[in-house]
């Protein structure tokens, strides 16, 4: 039973973390996590709204790019989403390590709930990239190395979500998903490299590079604020979704208890 697994994992952790890592123990206990999440979430949400509001104001008042004109404004939401698409996979990889190596009881909750949020941000990165590309390239889609890599990342997110959905028992699905996440983390750079190579092979560098390497300060600051805002948004959503998942598993445990009582 799930709940038993969660709580019996506690004593195993306790000796190693006597004083230094009280937070780990706090977080390892789902009930503690729930109460902590309840206290943190309103503040985190407020902070997210504040930072995003500042970021949006700064993006709105940022000057036009001499080359791309006003379409550079798409960058302010495209780049944060593209950043999150990779950041969330990183979060899931850490959680996967937590599942496989440390058997941290909340790790697979974190991994499972991050996947759909990461997929949503990746989807937005693709969508905004495509809308940005239309004025630049004349088509919505170009098999540009960056966009293509993000598309493959998106497919991997969907595959991971399908894996979570395919197995009813979350603790069994957790192992498989963790392995896949880590394999993905190792493979993403390889895929990125291959796609880059494939792209240059076919297209001599005539494509306009999105968000070139030398960004003016006028763009950099709003971009940074937006990136921080979106990261905060992810954290808020993730903690809220983790809380939901813990509750869902509690419901599941209670239902199984209810079923077995009648035997």
């Amino acid at each position, binding site marked *: 039973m799930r*709940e*038993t697994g969660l*709580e019996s994992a506690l004593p195993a952790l306790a000796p190693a973390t006597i004083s230094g890592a009280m937070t780990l123990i706090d977080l390892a206990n789902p*009930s503690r996590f*729930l*109460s902590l999440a*309840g*206290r943190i979430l309103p503040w985190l949400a407020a902070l997210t709204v504040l930072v995003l509001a500042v970021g949006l104001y700064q993006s*709105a*008042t940022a000057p*036009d790019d001499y080359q791309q*004109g*006003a*379409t550079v*404004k*798409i960058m302010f*939401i*495209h780049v944060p*989403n593209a950043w999150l698409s990779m950041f969330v996979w990183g979060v899931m990889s850490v959680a996967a390590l937590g599942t496989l190596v440390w058997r941290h009881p909340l790790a697979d909750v974190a991994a499972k709930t991050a996947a759909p*949020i990461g997929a*949503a941000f990746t*989807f*937005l990165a693709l*969508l*905004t990239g495509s*809308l*940005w590309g*239309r*004025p630049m390239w004349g088509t919505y889609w170009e098999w540009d190395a960056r966009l293509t890599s993000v598309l493959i990342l998106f497919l991997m997110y969907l595959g991971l979500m399908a894996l979570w959905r395919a197995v009813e028992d979350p603790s069994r699905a957790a192992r498989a998903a963790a392995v896949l996440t880590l394999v993905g983390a190792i493979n993403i750079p390889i895929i990125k490299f291959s796609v880059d190579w494939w792209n240059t092979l076919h297209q001599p560098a005539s494509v306009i590079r999105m968000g070139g390497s030398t960004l003016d300060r006028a763009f950099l600051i709003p971009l940074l604020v937006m990136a921080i805002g979106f990261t905060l*948004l992810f954290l808020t*959503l993730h903690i*809220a*979704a983790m*809380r*939901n998942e813990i*509750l*869902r598993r*509690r*419901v599941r*445990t*209670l*239902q199984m*208890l*209810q079923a077995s009582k009648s035997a």
Partner: protein
Amino acid sequence: MTLGPYASFIIMSYVAVATVVAALIIWVIADYRSQKARLRDLEAAGAVRRSGRSAVDVK
């Protein structure tokens, strides 16, 4: 602020991001409410956690 000839693309991308983020927020809130409601129903049906604590009274 003028958005130039490609205003529709810029507005569309901001609207798309706003829509998807709003959908995520609504999903999270609706899911929270439904799980809470199911827990309350189970509690009412007499299911008690092993530890004897109430499953609902965590904030």
